């Protein structure tokens, strides 16, 4: 009996073009599995963004629209509202990096949450700008060496990072906000369950749902895939705790 196969919502013969060991691949795979399980493929419009996450449409066999850098939640708002104007409810989610969601796009992201826009945002937090080669991002941690914080991030010179899932949880329109990780099987399964819950929040028409995925960037962290996961498990989860910060779906 076949107990595992590539999800139907992954394009046939597609080959992920992410760097070796990058968690983007696992994130996209579990999103595809959830789309299959909830039977959403034929009713979904996904919004990708700039950075490594833009490539979503190369791998997912669903309708996808690319947003300008940072604007995925605004674009998703337009998609959702437009279909609603014709009396149709489409399933709309964004797939963004932390720079996209929480730096350049924080205004659009947070206002979508504040309005309680009935969309789901998935944010890959790998604590740096990956595609451009590992610059300091809004989530780079104190002391982190990046190509634009070569002496390490420090609060006097660079300022503090953002804890995105906690901040988004504060918005009244947010019904679900959580942070998950993908560093081992247990956490991947938990992440999938959490993202599924966020998707169901939208399907129940409850409002904004958000999942931040603590992810590895082995290339820019200059670590192996294994050591990247170790760093997430032992170091990053202490700063960015894995938790559900808000769940008022059934209130």
């Amino acid at each position, binding site marked *: 009996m076949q107990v595992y196969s590539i999800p139907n919502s992954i*394009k046939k013969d597609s080959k992920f073009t992410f760097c070796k060991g990058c968690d983007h691949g696992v994130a996209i795979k579990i999103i595809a599995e959830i789309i299959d399980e909830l039977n959403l*493929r*034929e*009713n*979904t*419009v996904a*919004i*990708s963004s*700039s950075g490594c996450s*833009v490539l979503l*449409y190369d791998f*997912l*066999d*669903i*309708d*996808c*629209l*690319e*947003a*300008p850098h940072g*604007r995925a939640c*605004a*674009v*998703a*708002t*337009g*998609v*959702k*509202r*437009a*279909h*609603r*104007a*014709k*009396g*149709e409810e*489409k*399933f709309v989610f964004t797939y963004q990096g932390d720079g996209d969601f929480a730096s350049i796009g924080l*205004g*659009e992201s947070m*206002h979508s949450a504040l*309005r309680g826009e009935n969309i789901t945002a998935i944010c890959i937090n790998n604590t740096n700008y990956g595609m451009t080669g590992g610059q300091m991002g809004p989530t780079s941690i104190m002391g982190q060496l990046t190509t634009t914080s070569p002496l390490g991030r420090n609060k006097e010179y660079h300022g503090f990072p953002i804890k995105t899932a906690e901040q988004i949880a504060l918005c009244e329109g947010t019904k679900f906000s959580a942070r998950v990780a993908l560093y081992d099987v247990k956490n991947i399964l938990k992440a999938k369950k959490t993202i599924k819950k966020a998707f169901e929040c939208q399907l129940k028409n409850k409002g904004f749902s958000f999942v931040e995925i603590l992810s590895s960037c082995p290339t820019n962290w200059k670590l192996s895939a294994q050591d990247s996961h170790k760093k997430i498990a032992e170091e990053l989860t202490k700063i960015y705790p894995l938790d559900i910060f808000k769940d008022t779906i059934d209130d």
Partner: protein
Amino acid sequence: MIEKSLLKGNIAIARAALNCGCSCYFGYPITPQTEIGEFLSLEMQKRNLAYVCAESEIGAINMALGAASSGQKVMASSSSCAVALMQETLSYAASDELPIVLVNVMRAGPGQGYIYPSQGDYNQATIGGGNGDYKTIVLSPSSVQECIELTYKSFYLAQKYRNPVILLVDGLLGQMAEPATITQNPYPDIDTSSWRLDGAKDRPSRNIHSLEPNQNKLNQHVLKLYQKYQQIEQSEPDWEEYLCDDAEIILTAFGTMARSAKAICNHFREQGIKMGVFRPITLYPFPYKRLRELSFKAKYIIDIEMNMGQMLKDVRLGVLSNSQISFIGKPVGDWLKKEEIINAIKNIIKEQYASI
């Protein structure tokens, strides 16, 4: 028969948009276009249509981008310095081939400037402030009646060519009321089912994106866009000629400035001077060809604008004759007065028309 009523330009645009089936509007307040959003806020909510008071103009134009992917008629409106904020997404929409109608009711710049009359966004609209090789269709009304007709045309051209269209409106016109008739939309609806995103049901999945890492594919994409622009340049130039047939002096002007130009033309005609007015209605595609034809009979081409000569360069590109090309303009403030313009014209033409 539909009767004329006293209508403000901004309201006329909003009513025409509703009338031709615009189902999505996104905006942010800025004078002098705010009445468009105010009017639509109630009308669209009553009809269960999409209306979002966006967090910023960047938010608004990106909501419009998303909504346009649904294949529906989508509009955003703003003014000058805030349209500047939207330029990035116009470049995306052009590359994505998504139809968005953007109304720019102009104020004076540069920077925040003020809400004084000005036509300072000719360059911003026709050349574009976004990156890369792209074009936006630009329509320029000169009356409230034309605000209605060109709003219809904007939605039609946006969907016909799958391209953003800018309706470039003088602040004066947005704020001014004059008798006009809400006519019926004369254009057919365009079928968007071959490209819109609405879920991959009974068809392969689609994606709309501007990123293209493959050099050849990106080249092909831009070349394909330019084939479309070439078609637009052949089929869509639109203009108004006023007494141009025998004109030895042609005044060129767009928007409300052309109304003053016509009054001035009448003044000189009364004195026996063969003057005409040439008014581009499509600023892109600019009606170069017709202006070129007319210019061979003209001794003088005098361009009049409420800016420092932005359309002037297109006039120069159009005119291949030996006509003398001059410019009369003022960047900001009170509309150029008839007497000011008449004196300036007399100064220009005095060598050949010594009698006046």
